[in-house]
């Protein structure tokens, strides 16, 4: 039996210190990612620091933003009325994720830190995985890849960041508050994740012992609408093949301002800035929507199993742009 130490501190400082002091320690929140990795033998920490007793639960509604405790569950955040009113796409992304049972356990902090679903990563009997063991190769590229990324990847690693809610969060430029061995800092989500093609084994900028305490989510200004479209094989309980989070402000028939991020395609939640720039200040035009999608996907790196995602992502974005520009709500 693989024994590990189980700590359940009640203060943030204790939790940070406990992990920082032990290179083999890990935080445990809802456990829906962490325990799977342990059972699969992918990541077997010697010390598990359960953070669920820390006072990091709950949502503070301010006039311009939400301050969301890192331990707030996906269901709790989805149930917050202000989220429904001012961040519809966050709510939709949450409720299209996982299952209600998982969402009741899974925390919003843990969601941002979920590890890739790549089956080669999650099976230690597969030796070639640059993300798990640097310079060992990438089994996914040569084998069966479908739930893999096409943006921000290269032949060294095509791992997908599979979070749904991270997609609208990066679109509204949420940020996380981090408490770590060297103190507190704020990291915008746009700078939080590290693309696989910038180094397959590093997933984000957190250091060992860094604890996310809060996620600050700016509210969309009044008059904006937003929505999240998730495309997947089955109707429920599956990660996205592709998804599109769109928030925009219309001025008559014109897109006054817009935020776009794509899911299911990137090694990190994918902010589509060039598409935003192409569409901001333009009239509703399906041809232009498609061009904006194509521009976003132009740098795609595909393998046979993922090639269809380029086209599907373009269509997913176009469809969501049509929906958001057509149906005022």
């Amino acid at each position, binding site marked *: *039996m*693989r024994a590990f130490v189980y700590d359940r501190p009640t203060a943030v400082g204790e939790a940070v210190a406990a992990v920082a002091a032990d290179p083999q320690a890990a935080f445990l929140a809802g456990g829906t990612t962490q325990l799977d990795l342990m059972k699969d*033998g992918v990541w077997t920490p010697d010390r598990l620091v359960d953070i669920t007793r820390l006072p990091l639960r709950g949502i503070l509604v301010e006039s311009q933003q939400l301050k969301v405790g890192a331990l707030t569950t996906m269901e709790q955040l989805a149930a917050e009325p202000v989220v429904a009113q001012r961040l519809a796409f966050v709510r939709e992304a949450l409720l299209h994720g996982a299952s209600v049972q998982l969402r009741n356990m899974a925390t919003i902090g843990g969601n941002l830190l979920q590890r890739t*679903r790549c*089956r080669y990563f999650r*099976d230690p*009997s*597969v030796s070639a995985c640059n993300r798990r063991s640097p310079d060992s190769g990438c*089994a996914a590229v*040569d*084998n*069966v890849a479908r*739930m893999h990324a096409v943006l921000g990847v290269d032949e060294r690693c095509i791992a997908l960041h599979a979070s749904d809610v991270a997609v609208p969060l990066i679109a509204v430029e949420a940020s996380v508050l981090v408490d770590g061995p060297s103190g507190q800092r704020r990291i915008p989500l746009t700078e939080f994740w590290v693309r696989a093609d910038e180094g397959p084994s590093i997933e984000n900028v957190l250091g060992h012992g860094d604890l996310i305490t809060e996620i600050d989510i700016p509210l969309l200004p009044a008059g904006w609408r937003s929505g999240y*479209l998730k*495309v997947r*094989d*089955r*109707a*429920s*309980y*599956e990660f996205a*093949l592709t998804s599109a989070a769109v928030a925009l402000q219309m001025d008559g028939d014109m897109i006054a301002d817009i935020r776009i991020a794509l899911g299911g395609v990137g090694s990190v939640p994918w902010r589509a800035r060039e598409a935003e720039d192409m569409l901001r200040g333009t009239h509703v035009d399906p041809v232009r929507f498609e061009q904006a999608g194509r521009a976003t996907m132009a740098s795609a790196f595909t393998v046979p199993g993922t090639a*269809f995602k380029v*086209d*599907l992502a373009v*269509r*997913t974005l*176009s*469809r969501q742009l049509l929906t958001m520009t057509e149906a005022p709500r």
Partner: protein
Amino acid sequence: MTATKPELGTWVGKGIDRVDGPHKVTGTAPYASDVTLPGMLHAVVVTSTVAAGTITKIDTSALLTLPGVRAVFTHENFPRLNHSPDVLFGEAPTTPMQDNRITFHGQEVALVVADTVQEATEAARLIEVTYAAETPLLDPADGRLETLPLSPDTSRGDTEAGWAAADVRVGATYRTPENTNNPLGLMGCVAAWDGDHLEIHDTTQGTIALRKTLAVMFGVPESGVRVRVPYLGGGFGAGLNQWPYKLLAAGAARELGRPVKVMLTRPQMFRLVGHRPDTEQQVRLGAARDGTLTMIEHRATSLSSIDFLAVGLITSGTPHLYTCPNVATVERTVRLNRRYPTSMRAPGEAEGNWAVETAMDELAHELGMDPLELRLRNFATAVDPADGKPWSSNAVVECCKVGAELFGWSRRDPRPSSMREGDLLIGWGMAAAGFFAYLPMSQARVTVYADGTAAVRSAATDLGTGTYTVITQLAADLLGLHPQQVDFQLGDSDLPASAQSGGSGLASSVSNAVIDAVAHLQGALLDLAGPDSPLHGQRPEDVMCRDGALCRRDDPSVRVPIADLLAGQNLVEASGDGRVRPPDPEAAAMAQAGAYGARFVEVAIDPMIGRLRVRRVVSVTDGGRILNQKLARSQIIGATVGGIGQALFEDTLTDPGTGRVANGTFGDYLVAVNADVPDVEVVFVGEPDRYTPAGTKGIGEIGLVGVAAAIGNAVHHATGRRLRDLPITIDQLMM
């Protein structure tokens, strides 16, 4: 004793709740995973990480020093077992750990036994196995593969002449992928020896087949092996074979002199208990302008493992559904370094139907004819076209007509992409279905007691399908009792022998054995009636049991309480033994019919993002006599869910380089979830089948057959796109 057709209907047919339901929902039903015995050890199976080659070294010495670890078995120290016996639909694949040969990725190479499952799991993770790996045969197109006939080729007439004579012809290649059975209940067992006696609690679908296999392979008398499986968490065929894990548990338990428990993990369920193998099929159809079929040719190749062959049955239904003078079937399999195949719900039939019923739709399209009309024109309704004998029953036409009516088929605009709702393309598709007749041997004993209650005993299993309930209902009718007065005991090989639950044959098999047993019971009770009894001199077929008494059939008021009959001879119980009787001469002259069905499906497709949703299913089945409307409906709904999975999701993938299962978890292998399944309208038509007294035909599998083809045909209707490879996924549907 000739079996008289029993009068059934007081309880038989009624949709009563499962008699085992309360045990299940209160968590008191004991499954194999719940069994804990004193001194029991836990074992974990270690599997290979190469697909071909030999083991050159397994270092186990270090493991034995780990806490709790009691033993590690490998091919070097696992006992040598005898050859496995033949078991229809349930053979043991290669005996595990007899030598160092590896034939597939994920093969059993060691068994770690420890005090706790956690200790065994950790030791299993640390074991170091060194292989001399060889390049595995993994590409089905590899010319070096050994090809074998899987069942005899069949042919009638002259298919080339039928092809030449046809006005309209279609021919294409169809593919179905590997699907994994995946019952929710993980499979496993607890094996315990007492001297030469072995008792095993298992998840088998056939207690007697497992008993025989264990007795032969361990060289002990069959009388000394007891298999117990009172409850099963499903199986879908994965419980039919005598899988290595059972032999490993029994072998380890014997060596260690302690009970040993093995429970497989979900990833192991994808590797160690079989699957529906991949197929590639070629179908050619020819028809006259009026739609009369002039030829059918159906060729299939399935993928097998190196040592253990696929079940087949892909083409076996093809000669029987349609009247056509020229029919040929050819079925082959090839050996690859892949895991062992087995039967999965509607084995072969589900795959073969996909090809043939898609081809029929293509033919209808080419003919410009309604696909329903094409089928109605060609069904072989009166006689089996393969041998000319009259069917014992056949309501396939009624299936189609009732289904079409309920579905509103006549409102279908035949032109592809003609039916739209906003951005959505709507498609209506249908398929016909047949299933083979299978009536295996079972025995049963019916016992009545002085208190008026009765027990039925048979070594059958209840997969969750409802065996407990339907046999209780049947016995209640036959004995004139309330179902609560009847106790059906199953799941124990010490009971009268029974067939496995498989091939949709068990309910029919046990039903006919129970009917026979009750007839013998009546005879036995009559024997107890003394000379002054009002029943003295009656023949067994002239009496029946009613409300705890034996009475005359023609005048039930002439009756003697069973308690009195027993007391008169100082007895406390009386029994009758029964078995499946050979058909009477009239039935034997008929072609025994299996179940039939017709499936009607509506799909809605969003062509921009390739999203397909099944919106409506009407499923009509001719299953002969329906023993319980509610449970039968559940069977069809469950099978429809399986059919939707086969059509749209299920696809066990293999890494092309290594032969590893690429998606062997429930996170990666998709099955249909609730949101994928619309309301399913289930209807039964037809009459009790004339071949046996019970009149049942078996409905466990037919419900799956035809669902995929109906969906695929609906996709064609919606989009004009003919998709011939399952599953049908988003990337094929973007338009």
